[in-house]
Structures are given as C-alpha cells and as structure tokens.
C-alpha cells in the first residue's frame, strides 16, 4: 500500500463550537493507483488530503505513506516522496518569483544539486519548454500556471502526487489538457495519484477507483467501472450521479439531505 489511512478524525474548534470535519475515515491507495476522493463542499475530502500531506497536524488515527507511519509533523524526506498541487494556480505561485526561482526552491531545500538540468527537464515534461523559464506568473495563462504548479511538485521526483481540485479553476478546454498531462505523467513516472474533486466526470477520466464522502464520513468506495455503469450502492452516491447529469426539473425535486 502506498497510502494507508485508518480511522482518521479531524476536529476544528473547541468546546461547543467543535466541528468534526473528518469522522473516522479508513481507506488505502495502492502503489501506482489513481484514486479519486469525491464529495460536496464540507464533506471533508480536502481535509483528508491536507492531513495526508502534513498541512493539517490536528488529527487522530493512523496515516502511513510508503509503509512509513507518519506523525503530525513531517520529516523533510516526506516531501521528497509526496507532493501536492492546489486548486487555484493564481494563488499558489509566488507572484514576484520567476518560474525558474519557483522551481529552484524545492531543489535547494532538498539539496539535490544540478538545478539547471532538473528545471529544464521538468519544464519540458509538463509541456512548457525552456522559453517559459524566466517568466513571471502574471505573464502566464491559467493553464500554463497550473503546469508550473505541477512542475514544482514533480521537480523533486516524488512517488505520490496529491491533487486538490486541480482543474476546477480552469476552462474546459484547458482542463482537458491538464487531465491529459496528468495521465501521461502518471504513466511515465509510475506516480500514485490522489485526486480530490467534486466532478465525477473528471474522476471517471483519470482514476481507477474512488471513494465518496459526505459530512466527514466515507459513504462508499467503488471502481470507476462501477461509476460508469451507475452501479452505486448508496442512495447518496446515486443522488450525486443524477445531479451530475444536467438539469432535470423532476430530478431536482427528488433531492434530499443525507446526514
């Protein structure tokens, strides 16, 4: 198992204001697998990802990555193994750093050396090429920025890529390019992907397996083949599937809240 999560719980706030964002989630992701974590806002899907990535240290349970048990605070080596790409490429790149500096920083932190060749290689890898190297983020389109964010994650040659809504801020034509890029990178580098999204069609395109979350709980796990056939067991998942198929007056009437 590349990622093994047992009974993960994340709470925010104190006393009467306590919110249980993740309520006992258990799941595992095999090496080389592409796994989708799906749910609506507030379902806890991003919180699970942030706990795995080490961005959130207020959790209980067990998280193991590549066979190593992880504590709340991660060692530097963890980030060499596991990197993350965020939703908004307008917010996740330093506006006053060139692409070169953005990509050089993780190399310097990890003392990898040979920065020049690494940056050149990773830029080609994400389909940008050396001409983008000395540009600033504001000189790039949204899709190009997301390619830089993916390059920054890949420059450390990680084995796991955590993706938090990586195409939600992009136009559909650009989304297609980024999905194709992620698929190619996964094949070429044997990456394990964990993709958090609200978009079932994106999961169907990129993932092998998925888990559906609602209000902090894992509702069900299924294969993408089952998703494609609409073969969900839980009513909540079926409702999510129907809602993804476009507007229908009668269907909208049938929706209800699942606690």
């Amino acid at each position, binding site marked *: 198992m590349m990622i093994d999560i047992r009974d993960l719980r994340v709470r925010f706030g104190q006393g009467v204001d306590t919110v249980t964002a993740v309520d006992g989630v258990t799941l595992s992701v095999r090496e080389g697998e592409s796994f989708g974590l799906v749910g*609506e*806002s507030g379902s806890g899907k991003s919180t699970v990802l942030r706990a795995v990535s080490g961005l959130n240290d207020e959790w209980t349970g067990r998280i193991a990555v590549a066979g190593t048990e992880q504590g709340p605070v991660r060692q530097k080596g963890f980030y060499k193994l596991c990197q993350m790409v965020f939703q908004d490429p307008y917010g996740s790149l330093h506006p006053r750093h060139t692409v070169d500096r953005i990509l050089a920083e993780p190399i310097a932190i990890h003392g990898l050396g040979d920065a020049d060749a690494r940056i050149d290689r990773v830029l080609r890898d994400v389909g940008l090429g050396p001409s983008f190297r000395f540009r600033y983020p504001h000189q790039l389109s*949204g899709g190009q920025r997301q390619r830089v964010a993916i390059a920054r994650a890949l420059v450390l040659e990680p084995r796991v890529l955590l993706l938090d809504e990586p195409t939600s801020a992009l*136009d*559909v*034509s650009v*989304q*297609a*390019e980024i*999905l*194709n890029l992620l*698929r190619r990178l996964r094949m070429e580098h044997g990456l394990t992907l964990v993709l958090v999204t*609200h*978009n*079932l*069609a*994106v999961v*169907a*395109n*990129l*993932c092998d397996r998925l888990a559906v979350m609602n209000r902090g709980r894992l509702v069900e796990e299924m294969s*993408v083949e089952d*998703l*494609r056939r609409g073969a969900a067991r839980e009513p909540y998942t079926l*409702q*999510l*599937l129907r*809602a*993804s*198929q*476009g*507007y*229908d*007056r009668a*269907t*909208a*009437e049938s*929706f209800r809240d699942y606690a």
Partner: protein
Amino acid sequence: MADNSPLLDVSNLRVAFPTRTGMAEAVRGVSFTLGREKLGIVGESGSGKSMTGRSILRLVPPPGRVSADRLAFRGEDLLAASARRMRDIRGRRIAIVMQDPKYSLNPVMTVGHQIAEAYRVHSKAGAAEAKRRALEMLAAVRIRDPERVYDRYPHEVSGGMGQRIMIAMMLIPDPDLLIADEPTSALDVTVQMQVLAILDDLCSQRGMGMIFVSHDLNLVASFCDRILIMYAGRVVESCRASELHAAQHPYTRGLLASLPRIDEPPGDLPVLSRDPAWLEG
C-alpha cells in the same frame, strides 16, 4: 404593447476598454433578440459573455465603453436612457444575479432587511408590507423557516441559501427580465439543481425572460431553451438547447469534445486547437 414583440433587442453590441495599445474590444458586434424564454450565453473566460450581460444594464465599469446599433428593452432605447431612468429599470424591470452571494450581499445588514429594502426602493409600500412580501419571497425560493432566516446576517447562512436570498431579492420587484451570471457555479451540484428548479418555476409562472450566462455547456443545454456560443467577443453559433449536440461550429464541437464524461472510458481527451479564423466569425 404587443406581447409578441421581443423583450430585448440587441444589435451590434460592442464593449471596448482603452489600453496602452489602443481600444481592446471585449464584445465585438453581438446581436440577438430575447422573448419570454431562457436564453443561455456560453463561453470560456474572456469570451465576453459576462460583459454582454452587464452592458444590458449599463453596468460596464468606466473607462469601458458600450455602443450598439440597437439596445432596446420593450422598445425603449437603453443606451439613450438617463441615469435616473436606468436606476428605475435596474431591479424593477431588469434584475441581475451574480455568481457569489458572499460578495453581493451587504455583510452588516440582515438578509430580511436587504430583501425588504429591494422591494421598498421600487414600490411605495410601508415597512410592514415590505416585510410581509420579503417573507413570502423567502418562502417562494423554498427557504424552510423564513421568519428565522429573515433576521440572519449573510455570514450565518450557507452558500446555497445565500444564493436563494440573492434570487429572492432580485425577484421581489417582479422584473420582466432576469440576467443570471453564473448564478449556481459556486454551489454544490445538488443545491445547484434545486436553485435552477426555483428559477425555472419563477420563469414559467411569471412569464419572465432570462439570460443565463455560464461556462457549463451541459448545464445550459439541459436548462435553457436557446443557446448563444461566444468566442473572443462574438457569437460564433446559436442553436436550440436541445440541439447543442448537433452543433456545427468547430469551436462548439471542440468544447463539447473536450468535456470528460462519466460514461466514457478513461483516455486522452481531444484538445481544442484554436483556429485564428474563429476570431472573425
């Protein structure tokens, strides 16, 4: 006025912004007419779809400039209307709902007061009457406990409820035309469908016309009656919503093909290659 005359008649609409290198046109000659129907305007970011919606209400911020051969609402020339007349039209005759309730509601005023205020601005009703109408409107957008929600502040309601409150506020003066600019894009899919059902019912019950601006092709195809597809400030294609799948323009076809689908096996998606000729039509 004859009922078969269009609600809105737009001909050769242009919106331009001055830049260091001359005027940049965000909308370049858009023409359409709108009856009592749901018209979808679809396009990617920068296509001019939102500017088209805003220019109808003359809400394009300066130094942007709006011009048109004709921009008429029920026969009245909107470009020639005085500022005072436009204030009368905005809200009362033509309403607009924006994408994110977080930024469109006044954070220091209860939602009930905001809705009641929208009503009082456009009618001579007193405070008690306005409150009664506001509560009715909250119930019409299917808020379960209107009395309780009336006294809440915007930060105390969820995104879906905030968007329903926005819609209630926009519809309380009973406008003839609603411009909805990505009204459900910030919402979860199930809430999105519920909000659309409310808009759908209000359109059919009140005979209101609607311009629905969105980037979501499938949503527009399933919700609207007719669709305009915009690219680089122009309408490249218009069709009945039910016939979007048979669209002819290579841009429309490319956009449709680039959408991942739940029922298709994983694999590379066709990528749009933009033809410079599309810029001219």
